[in-house]
């Protein structure tokens, strides 16, 4: 294994500037959408008094969860001392910070009063898991920021392992908190389960690594830096394990619900599309499970595709789409299913849609705000690798593989 050289990218090419302009256009569209939604009020969105969290939250929670997962690569290097992951660690921290920033941007811009962000930062109700999450998000920026600094600064490098350990613990707490936002909602049958927290952690592993791989392959491809198969295949196999683990958690989640009679209605809604839930069950089976889990698994493990970057990149994109679908079924599906306020009673009349399934359709501004968050994350990564040396000059097998033997 040769010495690793971290170096900024040039970032002067037309392609690079075009990429920034592309992401910038989406960020501007997101800001425009926010102005439109805040000026008119949220009635212009698809959200209402039944589905109070819509498409912006699907994107925001996905990015926040993925942020924590993107840090995994660095954790494997610092906490579990795997040498092959060491050169990959700085990009992992940058991506984690960028994804969290994008996710929080969406979350804040969708608030009813985004101008009161300072209130959210200064007034805390410590019984609220949401308030704890604000502390966890802010802490993540500080701890991962320090971790990145220790890795990039030669004089501080000796402390990077400790910072990495702190970041590892913190990111587990952060995803536990994010999952618990839903797990702690006792009144809704789709939530109210402690398993939400560990399920979100394993989801973060999968989504974060898929995005990491996409960014890594794109960055090395577009800058013509060598990226060897040893690194890529190691990450590919790890990704396969994570995707399978997410599937396992989804199965256990639904089996648990299926065992409890009180949740049979929700499961029939989500899995069979009964009671007006066909939109959600279709997204669950065809996008989350088939397109977002089973097909990528086949693409990752199929014989003969080991070194095919295009197959891997496609699998990663499908995992991201599947992840967004999973967030959609959890966040939107969980709210669209009517709450049981009057057990044993059928609602004949209500002006407030009691007992009725809500069919939510995201409006264009909501989707643009969500895409703007992703664009913001990618723009930060693109700028980050230009300003600081997050990327090794080469990740060719002879450089990156600690067990490399010249053939």
């Amino acid at each position, binding site marked *: 294994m040769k010495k690793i050289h971290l170096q900024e990218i040039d970032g002067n090419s037309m392609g690079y500037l075009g990429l920034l302009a592309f992401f910038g256009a989406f960020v501007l569209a997101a800001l425009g959408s926010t102005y439109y939604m805040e000026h008119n009020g949220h009635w212009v969105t698809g959200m209402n008094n*039944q589905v109070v969290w819509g498409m912006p939250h699907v994107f925001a929670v996905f990015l926040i969860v993925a942020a924590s997962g993107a840090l995994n690569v660095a954790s494997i290097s610092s906490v579990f001392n795997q040498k092959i992951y060491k050169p990959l660690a700085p990009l992992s921290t940058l991506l984690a910070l960028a994804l969290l920033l994008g996710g929080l941007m969406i979350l804040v811009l969708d608030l*009813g009063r985004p101008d009161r962000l300072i209130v959210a930062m200064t*007034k805390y109700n410590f019984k*609220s898991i949401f308030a704890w999450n604000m502390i966890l998000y802010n802490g993540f920026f500080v701890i991962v920021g320090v971790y990145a600094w220790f890795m990039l600064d030669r004089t501080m490098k000796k402390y990077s392992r400790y910072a990495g350990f702190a970041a590892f613990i913190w990111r587990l707490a952060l995803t536990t908190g994010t999952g618990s936002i839903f797990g702690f909602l006792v*009144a*809704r049958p789709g939530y109210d389960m402690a398993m939400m927290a560990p399920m979100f952690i394993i989801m973060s592993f999968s989504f974060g690594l898929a995005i990491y791989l996409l960014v890594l392959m794109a960055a090395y491809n577009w800058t013509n830096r060598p990226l060897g198969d040893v690194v890529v295949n190691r990450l590919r196999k790890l990704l396969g394990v994570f995707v399978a683990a997410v599937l396992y958690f989804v199965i256990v989640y639904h089996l648990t619900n299926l065992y409890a009679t009180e949740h049979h209605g929700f499961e029939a809604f989500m899995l069979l599309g009964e009671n007006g839930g066909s939109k959600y069950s279709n997204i669950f089976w065809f996008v989350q499970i088939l397109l977002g889990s089973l097909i990528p698994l086949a693409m990752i493990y199929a014989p003969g595709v080991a070194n095919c970057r295009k197959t891997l990149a496609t699998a990663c994109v499908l995992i991201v789409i599947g992840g967004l679908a999973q967030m959609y079924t959890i966040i939107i599906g969980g709210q669209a299913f009517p709450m049981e306020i*009057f057990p044993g009673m059928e609602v*004949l009349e209500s002006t407030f849609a009691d007992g009725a399934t*809500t069919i939510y359709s995201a409006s264009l501004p909501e989707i643009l705000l969500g895409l703007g968050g992703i664009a913001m994350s990618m723009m930060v990564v693109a700028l980050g690798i230009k300003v600081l040396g997050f990327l090794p000059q080469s990740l060719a097998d002879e450089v990156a593989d600690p067990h490399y033997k010249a053939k």
Partner: protein
Amino acid sequence: MIEKTINFSRRVFVEKTATVAAAVTIAPGVFLHQVAQAKPADQAVTSAVRWGMLIDTNKCATGCTACVSACNEENGIQSHDRPATDQQWIRKVKLRDTQTGHITSLPMMCQHCEKPPCVDVCPTGASMKREDGIVLVDKHICIGCRYCMMACPYKARSFAHETVTDQKDYAPRGKGTVEACTLCVHRVDEGGTPACVEACNAAEHGAMIFGDLKDPESNISKELEKHGGTQLRADLRLNTGVRYQGI
């Protein structure tokens, strides 16, 4: 003789002083009930009372929306003809028992829980419960995250999806914040009853009783003791301030 007179006067003085002192000490306790009924504006709310409501669904008339109209009028709530996003502090619900076929009509609003999930989850503390049990939203620190709406088991809260016009000065509201039934706190603090209860009585249904759940002599407590009352989603152990009869 003169000395005796002086002694007598001294005794009278001591007795009278003691009486006045005792009266000053005991009076607040004796009159506490009345103080709670009509609280002066400068006096803090106490937990000596807990405001609640009892709804007899057998008296609630199907098709009657007097309580809803009164609430909207009282609190300046206007419809934009968009039911999915309009604010509804109180609504009428018609139910059918799936076993017996019995039809029930009832008004549904914030249940003013003793342990409100909306207060637990609010990140800033804007959702809060007063000492007297009334659950409110502080519109000044509500950031509009809607987590309370996710947490409320009764779908009792609405988000102000549109610009609010013609507000009442005693019921401040604003676009981008969450709102719900205040139990007409502005009336209660002046010794009155909520507008919905008043309207139900005016319509001669008398299906709603408002009062102090902690006062055994109040109408609501007597009625609850005599005929009982049910909490919606009692399994959640939230100890609601609003109770129902006939479901």
